[in-house]
């Protein structure tokens, strides 16, 4: 089976037999993006899911439960929020995917759908919301403003993409994305949930933290 891969990468080694954690190496080890974080040598390099245990049937069912009952956090900032609400209401209904209750409190939410333009003034509160959400949590960047700054590319007060301040799992492009587009993004998120992304093995829990900005005197 011929697989397209660049010739300078070696084929994946087989996992070791016997006891010990099974580390399935990830192609991200060779990735450029690891270098800027200094993570080339990191045993769990990259943000891709690395499994330390083989998922059992029970884990699979747990993932299925999580995927089919993702509760979003009400974090509609701007125009995409109206399309998110339109996705949530009768005509395109994400209640059928279990996402009916848009929780007001971040402590009860699973998914943070950042819908709308993120500005520098709002970035602080939004990151605080993200940090308040308990694990497992996922982030969906809805719309082009959250993906890359969008139509406000040169603006002095728009954060050029929400992935500058928090890790994003799914990007849904569009301005605003059609409700069908957002539902497609949610289906992708279901796939990610089932492949156990955003679980504890890929996140370092340091306890209550407070984002520190330079020049912060508080």
């Amino acid at each position, binding site marked *: 089976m011929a697989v397209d891969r660049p010739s300078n990468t070696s084929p994946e080694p087989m996992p070791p037999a016997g006891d010990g954690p099974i580390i399935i190496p990830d192609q991200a080890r060779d990735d450029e993006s690891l270098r800027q974080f200094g993570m080339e040598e990191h045993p769990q390099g990259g943000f891709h899911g690395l499994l330390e245990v083989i998922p059992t049937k029970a884990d699979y069912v747990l993932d299925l439960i999580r995927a089919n009952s993702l509760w979003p956090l009400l974090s509609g900032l701007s125009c995409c929020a109206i399309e998110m609400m339109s996705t949530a209401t009768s005509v395109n209904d994400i209640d059928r995917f279990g996402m009916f209750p848009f929780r007001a409190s971040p402590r009860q939410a699973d998914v943070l759908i950042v819908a709308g333009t993120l500005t520098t003034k709002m*970035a602080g509160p939004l990151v605080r919301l993200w940090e308040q959400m308990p694990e497992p949590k996922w982030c969906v960047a809805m719309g082009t403003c959250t993906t890359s700054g969008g139509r406000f590319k040169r603006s002095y007060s728009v954060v050029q993409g929400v992935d500058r301040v928090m890790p994003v799992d799914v990007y849904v492009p569009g301005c605003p994305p059609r409700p069908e587009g957002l539902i497609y993004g949610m289906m992708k998120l279901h796939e990610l949930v089932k492949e156990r992304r955003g679980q504890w093995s890929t996140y370092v829990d340091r306890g209550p933290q407070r984002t520190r900005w330079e020049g912060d005197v508080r």
Partner: protein
Amino acid sequence: MEHLRRPWPAAHALGRRRALTAPVAAGALVRLLAERLEVDLRHLWTDEDTVEYQVDAARAHDVLRTLRDDEDLAFFMLADAGAVDYGTGERFEVVYHLFSWKHPSWLRIRARVDRADPRVPTITDLWEGAMFHEREMYDMMGIVFEGNRDLRRIYMSPDYRSFPHRKDFVLPDDAADSAAAGVLPLERPETWDLTRFNQAPDVTFPPSDLREDAPAEAVEDGETLGDKSRPR
């Protein structure tokens, strides 16, 4: 070929408007302004639907008060109050648009403000709704309204140091190159703390407390470790 012609006149024949010429539209208003405010007719400029008048910043408040309180002028509604920057070395302008039932045109008052010392008397005592307008003008242009009870930034953070709508605040192709870019930490990538991604993870799945071979946690005196859901 008659049957192929469109039944309506061609688009380019719809014509452009006549060039805007002498004050024609608002005769009564112009006369009244000349009387009540002693305006020189040469300083008035009219358009199809607007009469415009320039004043100095210091006189703006009195002019607007007369316009509002006079029975024949009766400009009871402040439609808009905005600021314009004409560049470094030039002036600012605070532009007020007023509406009256008695006159068909909008009235535009352009108050010239010195750019080096931009101070204008506030009109919040005439119209309370001017408060947000003046806060926005202060935030975006740096024009100080004397007598305003609440002159603080409204759009930007309170610790923001620039005035975005000025002409010397440039938005280049790469916003990082502008003179006032990166005032806030989020705008500057070099302030992002990426070291938290470097450190080795000290938590594994399943949590170490639940493993059979987990070491006993040393509890210090007087410390409560009620929550064992994650290592401390």
